[in-house]
C-alpha cells in the first residue's frame, strides 16, 4: 500500500499506509491523525481537510479543479501549495507523498 506522510503543524510526522482508491483525507480520518476535520465528509463542501502539499510533490498530484479552488478561498491560511485532502485519491504514484497540516481547520 502507498505510504503517506502526514506532518502535523507542530512537526510531528505520521507515516501511514493508505489503501489505493481512498482519499488522502480518508487515510487521515480512518487512522485518527489529528489536524484534519473533514466536516462535510468528503464532498468538497467545507474546506476543513485543508493541507499543504510538499513542494517537491505538488506537481505530481492531479491538477486542482475550480470547485476545490473556490472552496480553498474559505480555508485557514491557504497558500499556493494548498489542496483539500478529500479531492486527492491515493495511487501507487503517490507512494511517499509528504503533506503538512495547517495550524487549524475551523
Amino acid at each position, binding site marked *: 500500500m502507498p505510504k503517506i506522510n502526514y506532518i502535523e503543524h507542530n512537526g510531528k510526522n505520521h507515516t501511514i499506509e493508505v489503501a489505493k482508491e481512498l482519499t488522502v483525507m480518508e487515510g487521515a480520518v480512518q487512522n485518527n491523525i489529528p489536524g484534519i476535520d473533514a466536516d462535510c465528509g468528503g464532498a468538497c463542501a*467545507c474546506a476543513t481537510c485543508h493541507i499543504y502539499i510538499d513542494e517537491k510533490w505538488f506537481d505530481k498530484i492531479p491538477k486542482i479543479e475550480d470547485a476545490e479552488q473556490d472552496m480553498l*478561498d*474559505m480555508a485557514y491560511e491557504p497558500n499556493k501549495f494548498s489542496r483539500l485532502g478529500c479531492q486527492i485519491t491515493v495511487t501507487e504514484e503517490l507512494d511517499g507523498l509528504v503533506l503538512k497540516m495547517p495550524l487549524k481547520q475551523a
Partner: protein
Amino acid sequence: MIKTDVLIIGAGPVGIFSVQQLGLLGLKAEVVDNLDKIGGQCIELYPDKPIYDIPAVPECDGETLTKNLLEQIKPFKTNFHLNERVQEISKDKNNWKITTNKNKIFFAPNIIIAAGVGSFEPRKFSVKEAEKFENKGIFYSIKDKNNFKNKKICIFGGGDSALDWAIELSKIAQVTLVHRRNEFRGAEHSATIAREFEKQGKLKIKTPFQIESIEGEDKITGITITKEDGKKEKIPTDCILGFFGLIMKLGPIVDWGLNLDKKTIPVNTENFQTNKNGIFAIGDICSYPGKLKLILSGFHEGALAARGCFKYARPNERLKFEFTTTSKTIQERLGVKK
C-alpha cells in the same frame, strides 16, 4: 419564559420538518437558530444550487425547499427565534431549562438538536492584530454602509460578498479589493464590473495577495500585503472588511454533557435520543452506524425523534399510529378536515 413541548435547535430543513412531524402528533415546538434567516445550510450555502435527491421532488434549489417546508408547517404557527444561539441547558424537574445568548429562557421536556455542523461564524483574519481591531476597524459584515463613507477601505475575499461590497462601497469610499488568487469565485458579471471599475480608476484590485500584518496603535492606519513571490506592499487604510465565507463551529453544545464523537453526537436509531433522556439529535449532527448526511435521512430521523419526544411531553398518553390520509385528528391539526 416560554413553555413548549419541544425546543428545536437549528432552522435547517431537518429542524423545520420535525416541527411538522411533532405537529401531527399534537406537540408544539419553538425553533432557535443563530442565523438571521430560516433554512440553514440550504439558504446560507446553496440557495440557488439545485438538489436532486429529495424524494418526489426531481429538482429543487435550497431556497424553494425551505419555502415549501415552511408552507408545510404553516398550520402549526411556529415561532422562530433567529439571530439567537442556545447557550446553556440544565435539568429542571421534568423539563430542560434552555437559555439563549439573549437570555431568553425556555422550559421544555424535550430538545431536538438539528444543528447541522454547528453554528455559522465568519472566517476571520488569522494575523495576530486582527482580534484587537475587531469591530474597531475590522468587520466581517456590514450593517450600515454609510459608516464607510469617504473612508479608505481594504476588502478581502473572492466571493459574491467581497465583489458586491467592493463595487457598492467604491461609489462612496476609496476601495482596494484584495484576493489570494487572480480568479474570483463570485458571479461572473460582478467580477466583470469590478474589473471595469478598476480600469476606470474607481476601484483598486490586488491579486494574488494575502494579508501579512495590520499597522496602527489605537486605530488601523494601514496594512501590509504579500504576493506569492514574497513581494510586499503597504496600503494606508482606515478599515478592513473580510469576506472569507463562513465556518461552522459546534459552539456551546460541547459543554452540555452529551457524548461526542469528533464533531457529531452519537444517537440510537430507534428514536435518535442522545445519552441524555429528552435530548435528541437529528440531521448532519448525529452519528450512528450507517449514517448518511443527506436531507432525506434527516427527515426520517425527525419523524422518529418526534415519537421519542411524545413519551416525555405526554407521559400519561399512549401514542397511536395514524396516517395523514385517514386520521381525523391529524386532519384537524392540519386544518384540512372537511
